C-alpha cells in the first residue's frame, strides 16, 4: 500500500506528459486550393522542387534538378525563370531552401557551397561563402535566413552547425560543433533550414533530429520541440516529426514546418505549441502522397505554399475561416 501515492504520482505524470506529447488540433483544417507544375523542363514545370519563398506578390521556387529558379504569381501563373546549371558566377548547382529578405532572393546552393543572392527580377548580385569547414565556409548550405540588418544565418548541413555572417559574409558566430552531431540542446543532426522571427528569435529545422530548436536574439538556447523531449524520437503524431526539411515564420509569428516523411506541414506557436497540420496525406489524394512537403512559405494573407518534391509541383493552401495565419 505504501507504493500507492507513488503509483498515483507516476500515473499523473504520465498522463500530463501524454497530453503534452499528443496535442490536439487547435484550428479548422487548411484547404488545398491549387496545385501547379508537373515534371519537366518547360517553363512552369519542375524537376524536384526543393525550396519555396514568397515576396509581397510572387512565389519563388527552387527547381532543383533543373538548376534554376522559377517565379509565379500567387495563382500559379508563370512569370519568369533565371539561373542555369554550372559552377560559375550566377550559375546554380542544386538550389535548395530560399528566402526573400530586404528586396532580395537568397538561394542556398547545395552543389556550389555558396549562398547566391539575386534581385527579385532575377539579376545575379553576389555569392557569399565558399566550400570548406572554416568560418564563413560551407559544406552544403541547406537554407538561409536574413535579419533586418542583413546578417545571414545559414544551415551548414554537413558541417552540423548554424553560422551567422554579416552582410559581406564575414563570420560572426556559430551554433553547434563543427562536424559533430548530437541530440542535446544546441547540438544538431544535419540542420536543413533556418528562419528568423521579427523579434529576432532564431528557429532551426534540426533535420534528422526530428525537431525544431529556438535561440533567443542574444544567441542563447531558448526551447525545442518535436516528439517526447525533442531528442530525435520521430513519429507521425501531432507535434512529432519525421525529418524536418524546411521552416518559415508566418505573418503572425507562428511557425510552419515541412515534415518530410509525414507528408505534411505542421503549424506551431512561437513557443512550439502545436496548432495544426495539413498535407496531401490527409486529403486522400489521388496523386503520389509520399514526399509531398519538403519546403514551405507563407504569404501575408495566410496562404501557404508548399514545395511538393514527389509530384514536382507547388501546393497552395489557405486557412480555415475561424482562425488565421
Amino acid at each position, binding site marked *: 500500500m505504501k507504493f500507492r501515492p507513488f503509483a498515483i504520482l507516476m500515473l499523473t505524470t504520465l498522463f500530463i506528459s501524454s497530453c503534452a506529447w499528443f496535442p490536439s488540433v487547435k484550428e479548422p483544417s487548411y484547404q488545398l486550393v491549387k496545385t501547379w507544375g508537373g515534371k519537366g523542363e518547360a517553363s512552369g514545370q519542375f524537376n524536384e522542387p526543393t525550396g519555396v519563398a514568397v515576396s509581397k506578390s510572387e512565389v519563388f521556387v527552387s527547381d532543383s534538378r533543373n538548376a534554376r529558379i522559377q517565379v509565379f504569381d500567387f495563382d500559379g501563373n508563370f512569370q519568369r525563370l533565371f539561373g542555369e546549371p554550372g559552377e560559375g558566377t550566377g550559375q546554380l548547382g542544386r538550389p535548395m531552401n530560399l528566402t526573400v529578405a530586404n528586396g532580395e532572393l537568397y538561394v542556398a546552393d*547545395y552543389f556550389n557551397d555558396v549562398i547566391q543572392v539575386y534581385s527579385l527580377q532575377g539579376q545575379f548580385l553576389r555569392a557569399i561563402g565558399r566550400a570548406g569547414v572554416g568560418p564563413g565556409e560551407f559544406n*552544403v548550405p541547406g537554407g538561409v535566413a536574413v535579419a533586418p540588418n542583413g546578417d545571414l544565418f545559414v544551415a551548414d548541413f*554537413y558541417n552540423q552547425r548554424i553560422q551567422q555572417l554579416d552582410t559581406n559574409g564575414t563570420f560572426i558566430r556559430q551554433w553547434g560543433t563543427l562536424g559533430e552531431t548530437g541530440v542535446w540542446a544546441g547540438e544538431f543532426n544535419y540542420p*536543413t533550414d533556418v528562419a528568423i522571427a521579427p523579434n529576432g528569435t532564431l528557429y532551426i529545422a534540426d533535420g*534528422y533530429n526530428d525537431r525544431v530548436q529556438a535561440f533567443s536574439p542574444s544567441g542563447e538556447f531558448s526551447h525545442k520541440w518535436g516528439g517526447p523531449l525533442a531528442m530525435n524520437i520521430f513519429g507521425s503524431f501531432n507535434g512529432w516529426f519525421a525529418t524536418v*526539411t524546411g521552416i518559415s515564420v508566418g505573418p503572425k509569428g507562428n511557425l510552419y514546418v515541412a515534415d*518530410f*516523411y509525414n507528408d505534411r506541414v505542421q503549424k506551431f506557436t512561437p513557443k512550439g505549441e502545436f496548432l495544426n497540420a495539413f498535407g496531401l496525406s490527409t486529403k486522400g489524394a489521388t496523386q503520389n502522397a509520399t*514526399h509531398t512537403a*519538403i519546403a514551405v512559405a507563407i504569404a501575408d494573407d495566410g496562404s501557404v505554399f508548399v514545395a511538393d518534391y514527389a509530384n514536382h509541383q507547388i501546393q497552395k493552401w489557405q486557412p480555415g475561416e475561424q482562425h488565421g495565419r
Partner: protein
Amino acid sequence: MKKLILLTAASLFWSATLFAAGTQYNLRVDGLACPFCAYGIEKKLIKTEGVESVTFDLEKGLVLVKAKEGMTLTEAQLKQLVDDAGFTLRSVSEQAL
C-alpha cells in the same frame, strides 16, 4: 552459312547497343532519408570520372548511377564514395542499359 552470318550480325548489333548504352549501377544505401542526404551522395558521385548521371529512389533506398559509355566503376570505388558522403553501402547490382 546464312544463319551463321545473321546470328553473328545480330550478336554484334546487340553487343554494340549494350556497349553504347552503358551500365547502370544500382546502389542500396542505408540512411537515405531525404533529398538533402541523397544529393550529398550525388554530389560525390557526379564528380567521379566515368559517371554520367545519378538519380535515386528514396522509397527503395536506391542510388542509380549511370556510367558513361565504355566506362566501368568498381564496387570498392562506389563504396568509398558513399562512405565519403557519410552513408553505408549495402549492396551493388549492375544492369546493362
